[in-house]
């Protein structure tokens, strides 16, 4: 456990020392959402109608873009090999890195989302559900994105490739995330959809670390 926390601390410390890099995700998130009213027009009812979808799609893109380099720096300076040789299983290392990245990327998105909901005239009934759905959905996105990042370590043109690998796998999270918020706004029961999101998170927690670790191992061979 202490080793797990050491890796989390290491990643957080690197991110803070570099400064700015991880906050780019949330800046992208805000900027991309702000572009939508400019694109579709400022009518409040149109914006309210599309608000949940816009926020979720942009959150998807923001997570994906920020995960591109999740393992790349460690791979290039060789610390990934040391992590793989460490007594901690590589699966746990992947989980630790995902947790660190959720704190760096997921949490700021979570904080920014209700703010953007206000900008898009979302009905106040959806705010709590939006926050809850994002809290359940963003870790899943990061876990799946980590698999994509592990697969593309050392690849040519990693960025575009990552989007092709990861975005189709994001679809269930997007569907249930948007549906939960829309149900809450319409006054329907959002609980089953939140439970579905929680189920996706548990499945991702149980399965993706194995796949990511396998991908990293074959990258290091």
């Amino acid at each position, binding site marked *: 456990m202490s080793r797990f926390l050491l890796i989390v601390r290491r990643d957080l410390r690197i991110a803070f020392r570099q400064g700015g890099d991880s906050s780019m995700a949330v800046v992208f998130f805000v900027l991309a959402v702000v572009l939508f009213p400019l694109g579709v027009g400022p009518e409040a009812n149109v914006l309210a109608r599309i608000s949940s979808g816009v926020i979720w799609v942009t959150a998807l893109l923001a997570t994906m873009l920020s995960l591109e380099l999740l393992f790349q720096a460690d791979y290039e300076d060789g610390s990934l090999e040391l992590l793989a040789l460490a007594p901690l299983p590589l699966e746990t290392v992947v989980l630790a890195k995902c947790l660190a990245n959720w704190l760096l990327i997921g949490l700021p998105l979570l904080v920014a989302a209700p703010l953007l909901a206000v900008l898009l005239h979302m009905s106040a009934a959806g705010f709590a559900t939006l926050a809850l759905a994002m809290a359940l959905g963003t870790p899943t996105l990061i876990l799946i994105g980590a*698999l994509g990042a592990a*697969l*593309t370590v*050392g*690849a*040519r*043109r*990693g960025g575009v*490739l990552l989007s*092709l*690998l990861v*975005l*189709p*796998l994001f*679809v*269930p999270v997007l*569907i*249930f995330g948007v*549906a939960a918020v829309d149900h809450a706004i319409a006054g329907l029961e959002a609980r089953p959809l939140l439970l579905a999101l929680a189920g*996706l998170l548990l*499945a991702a927690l149980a*399965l*993706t670390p194995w*796949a990511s670790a*396998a*991908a990293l191992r*074959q*990258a290091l061979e």
Partner: protein
Amino acid sequence: MKRVMHRFATPAQFLRLSAAILPWSAGLTVVLFAVGLYLALIGSPPDYQQGESVRIMYVHVPAAWMAVFVYAVMAAASAVALIWRHPLAYVAARASAPIGACFTFIALATGSLWGKPMWGAWWVWDARLTSVLILFFLYLGYIALMNAFEDQTRGERAAAILALAGAVNLPIIHWSVEWWNTLHQPASMARLGGPTIHGSLLAPLMVMALAFGAYFVTVLLLRIRSELVARKVRAIRLVRVQAAEEARLTRQARHAEA
């Protein structure tokens, strides 16, 4: 299991076996397509509701079945490749991906052609269309990842892991999309209480499905064979380049001595 696999699935054995199978599967493909297309285009009655455009279904439905089936083949080959590190399994997975992507594209294109007169739109965001579209992107991602590395084996292993992740995810994607929106007519073949499709339409459909299956086997064998040959050529070239390089070095060394 392992012994049987290693006895029958060495590349040399495969080349011999596939050479024996190929003429038969190719012939079967031609015959089945001839019969199936005749039945589908001429021999079967037009549908009382859909008219002549029902004939699109005879291409569309088998293509959609094959799209899913080929992904299953690819995932199974990838699993075998990852577990037993069998070289032929990597080649098989690699060879099926473009075929599956083509079947998926055919299913999407014919579905769109059928949708225009039936639904009045080229594209409708209904559940099955959307999940087939996502399947198409999964194929594209697999092919892109396969070719994204300098080192071929590296790409193959990464793509195999992706194929398995996709196979786990595909049912989840399908159900979530299904839940999201269902406008497509419900499945009329795989239902409790037998198919709801009339016999005169079912016969050509089944023949066409078999024709697509035979076509897949033929093209898969051809692609695996050509990939094996390409590898041999690459290996020979590599040896030649190395030999030439060594010869150059010894010549240089002798020159320096003299």
